């Protein structure tokens, strides 16, 4: 994957786009959601705690009024007399006392007086049915065992809907003994009366006894039996205030009663809400991701297409297709790059073409020279024989001719491409001697060789053809003539000057030679000049070669320019 991205410019661009487009979106959304959640949760918590405090206040208020009411009743003289001493009072008298004392709590609870054996004596309850309570079990036993108020949960089915009882014993005459009981009973309806208006529709509350059994619950806590779950959590050592059924759980102890109040409030963010928020976020990320993929696809295509074109062009150039060109109408850097590439390819193509042409020309010259060397050994031997025959027959001129010709021939057939200038001049001198004999001294030859040029290496047979050209063309129509060969070093160049005092050359011809626009071989017999010029040029480059000029006082001066090489 990573490699896949790295290997393509386009994919790199696309991937960066994608990251840049989606990452900030996702990060900031997650951040926002969390922040939002925290803020709302904190507000809710504050509100819920306040509500819980309020409800807890109501309940502890009721419990403390139980405390005071039962306390007063247990200490009341009349009640004491009735229970402790068995004094007879009218029913009306007792009831009026009972109703008077219990006025504060009667709307939410019943108050009953029990005898020491659990027999029910007086009750503020609406019904006439009186139920006795066991004294060995439950609330009366607990009240007997202890001074002060006892609160005890009741199973609703057993005690006619009573869910909570509070009891206090009426002390007997002896210390610690028990003459009867004051018992307060609350039913579920009573709790509803008490809490009416303090609960929202979605709230649930749950009053737990000291063993976290359900005393009273309402709303969601009742439907789903929150008490059981909370007790289970506590028994199993789990976190009891963990959210439950998308409700936040708040627990407060209710003063000294040992009871606890549990408030269940719906979470501001249920799992579902959060999940749907994240789904929206995911959708948005997908949408922006695909938009980004589209845009970055386009843009990276725009960016990378010329690079791919250039890359392809480079490949095809490497493969050898020199005709490769890039057609681009762009004017930016890519356009310039394409133009540069085209220029480069053009130059490369031209260079290669020229190279091939030069090679072809060189080959032509070589072939010509090889043809000229046809059977040179035979000729050489013959000339040698001629020299000896001439000497034997005392024909010295013929011997000289044969010897000089043999010398020229030897040099020209040797496989050496380059010889020293001294050897080349000697060759020219041999030629000159032959021509002197041939034309019977009609021409004079002078060779003036600077000492430090003698050892210069030059291509062979570059001087003799020029001298021959002077003899054949320059002096052909003259009675006599002089040909001078002069060599000198001109800085880093070697100059060889061959001048004659013959008829010279027309300006047109000179120009043609100097501008190197020889027509193909055989131009007016100046093939010698052409060949020498070509040899020099091919060996040393365009800046060297042959040029012709008028000689002062008539005739032609040919100049060869070569690099000075020893």
């Amino acid at each position: 994957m990573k490699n896949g991205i790295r290997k393509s410019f386009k994919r790199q661009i696309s991937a960066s786009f994608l990251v840049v487009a989606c990452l900030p979106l996702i990060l900031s959304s997650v951040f926002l959601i969390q922040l939002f959640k925290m803020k709302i949760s904190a507000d809710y918590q504050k509100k819920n705690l306040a509500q819980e405090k309020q409800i807890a206040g109501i309940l502890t208020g009721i419990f403390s009024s139980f405390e005071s009411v039962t306390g007063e009743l247990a200490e009341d003289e009349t009640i004491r007399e009735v229970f402790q001493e068995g004094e007879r009072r009218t029913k009306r008298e007792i009831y009026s006392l009972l109703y008077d004392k219990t006025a504060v709590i009667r709307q939410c609870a019943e108050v009953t007086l029990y005898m020491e054996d659990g027999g029910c004596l007086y009750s503020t309850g609406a019904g006439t049915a009186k139920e006795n309570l066991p004294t060995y079990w439950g609330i009366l036993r607990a009240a007997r065992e202890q001074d002060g108020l006892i609160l005890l949960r009741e199973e609703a089915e057993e005690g006619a809907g009573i869910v909570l009882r509070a009891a206090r014993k009426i002390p007997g005459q002896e210390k610690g003994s028990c003459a009867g009981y004051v018992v307060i009973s609350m039913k579920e309806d009573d709790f509803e009366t008490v809490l009416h208006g303090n609960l929202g529709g979605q709230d649930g509350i749950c009053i737990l006894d000291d063993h976290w059994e359900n005393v009273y619950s309402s709303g969601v806590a009742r439907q789903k039996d929150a008490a059981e779950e909370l007790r289970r959590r506590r028994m199993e050592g789990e976190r009891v205030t963990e959210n439950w059924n998308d409700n936040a759980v708040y627990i407060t102890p209710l003063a000294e009663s040992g009871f606890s109040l549990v408030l269940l409030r719906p979470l501001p963010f249920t799992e579902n809400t959060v999940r749907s928020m994240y789904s929206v976020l995911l959708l948005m990320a997908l949408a922006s991701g695909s938009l980004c993929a589209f845009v970055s696809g386009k843009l990276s295509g725009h960016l990378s297409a010329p690079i791919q074109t250039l890359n392809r062009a480079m490949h095809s150039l490497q493969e050898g297709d020199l005709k490769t060109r890039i057609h681009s109408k762009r004017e930016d850097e890519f356009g310039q790059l394409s133009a540069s590439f085209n220029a480069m390819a053009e130059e490369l193509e031209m260079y290669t073409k020229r190279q091939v042409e030069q090679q072809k020309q060189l080959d032509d010259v070589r072939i010509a020279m090889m043809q000229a060397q046809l059977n040179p050994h035979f000729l050489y031997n013959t000339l040698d024989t001629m020299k000896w025959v001439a000497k034997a027959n005392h024909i010295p001129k013929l011997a000289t001719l044969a010897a000089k010709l043999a010398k020229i021939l030897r040099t020209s057939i040797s496989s050496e491409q380059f010889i020293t200038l001294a050897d080349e001049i000697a060759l020219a001198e041999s030629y000159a001697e032959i021509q002197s004999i041939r034309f019977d001294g009609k021409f004079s030859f002078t060779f003036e060789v600077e000492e430090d040029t003698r050892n210069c290496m030059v291509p062979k047979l570059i001087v003799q053809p020029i001298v021959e050209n002077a003899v054949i063309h320059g002096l052909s129509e003259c009675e006599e003539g002089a040909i001078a060969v002069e060599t000198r070093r001109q800085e880093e160049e070697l100059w060889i000057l061959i001048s004659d005092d013959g008829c010279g050359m027309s300006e047109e011809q000179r120009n043609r030679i100097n501008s190197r626009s020889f027509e193909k071989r055989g131009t007016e017999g100046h093939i010698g000049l052409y060949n020498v010029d070509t040899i020099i040029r091919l060996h040393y480059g365009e800046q060297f070669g042959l040029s012709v000029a008028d000689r002062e006082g008539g005739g032609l001066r040919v100049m060869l320019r070569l690099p000075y090489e020893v």
Partner: protein
Amino acid sequence: MLKNYKTEIKPTGMRMEREKSSRFCRRGARVAALLFLSVVLSGCGTGAGGEEYALMEDEQLILYTSHKEEVYGPIVREFEERTGIWVEVHAGGTTEMLEKMKQNEGKNACDVMFGGGVESYEAYEELFVPYAPAQSEMLDGNYASEDHLWTLFSELPIVLVYNNKLVSGAEAPKGWAEFLTDRWKGQIAFADPEKSGTSYTALATMSQILNLDDQELLEKFSAALDGKLSSGSGEVLKEVSAGTRLVGITLEETAKKEMARGADISMVYPEEGTSAVPDGCALAAGAPHPENAKKFIDFTVSEDVQRLIMEQFFRRTVRTDMQSTEKTGEEIHLVDFDLARAGSRQEELLQMWAGYFPEEQG
């Protein structure tokens, strides 16, 4: 010139750029991850743990019971109230709970098994350790475990019931023998003994009282049942009071309770006599809270609880000092019931039973 074209321009600059950018990406990713984590963590960190509500080990007791909630509920509540111990109750059928104990052996999963006929305790004796409760000398010696492997809770005679509307007093069943004839064919409400301990005890009682071998008993009895079984012991009384069946075999306690609720049924003590197999309570082997478990067992046989079960649950106490106060209405003829024999034959008998009622298996 050609040489110039071949010059390779090494893209060092580009590579550096790329390295730099990837390094930046890595660091960016790390920073982002940190940010994200901090947000998520702070989002979750509301409120401290519930350590303040943690219970001490010595405040706990794990109770397996096969009693109904109406029985164990008040007892457990009173026990919690008096001792301050928190009781974790797991309720279910007798066999179910015993099997569960067997599965959870060695996992500190149970302190006390409460309820179920004591013959079942015999059958699973390896799950328990002996404990003699504080007032064991007061308990009925007839059924008491000699080695105190279990402690009695209440005595439960098996009785016959019939529907008052459909069966007249004169026609009423008198004893066990009738149930092996065609007299009540297809009209007997009887729970599957593979599920109901009471039904098994009834089978064993019939077998012992009528002195029949198991094969013969099952043959006749299954013919009388005519393939009809109640789904549980609770169903027996419902079926009889609803008139679905005319007669039923159940516990005295259940029958009395149903009658107190106003069901129009009558109860008959079989004339041949009947067994009163007690249910019990035992300390689990490997109990995690043995001290609390012992307290609980002591509590079940205390005067208060025994009085409660007599007055509220229509059960017979196992305390000899209290049996005299028992209000006995009709004459009940209790036979000596060989618990050990019933316990040892249970598996075999149930296998044979499955042969007669194969569709009831599983």
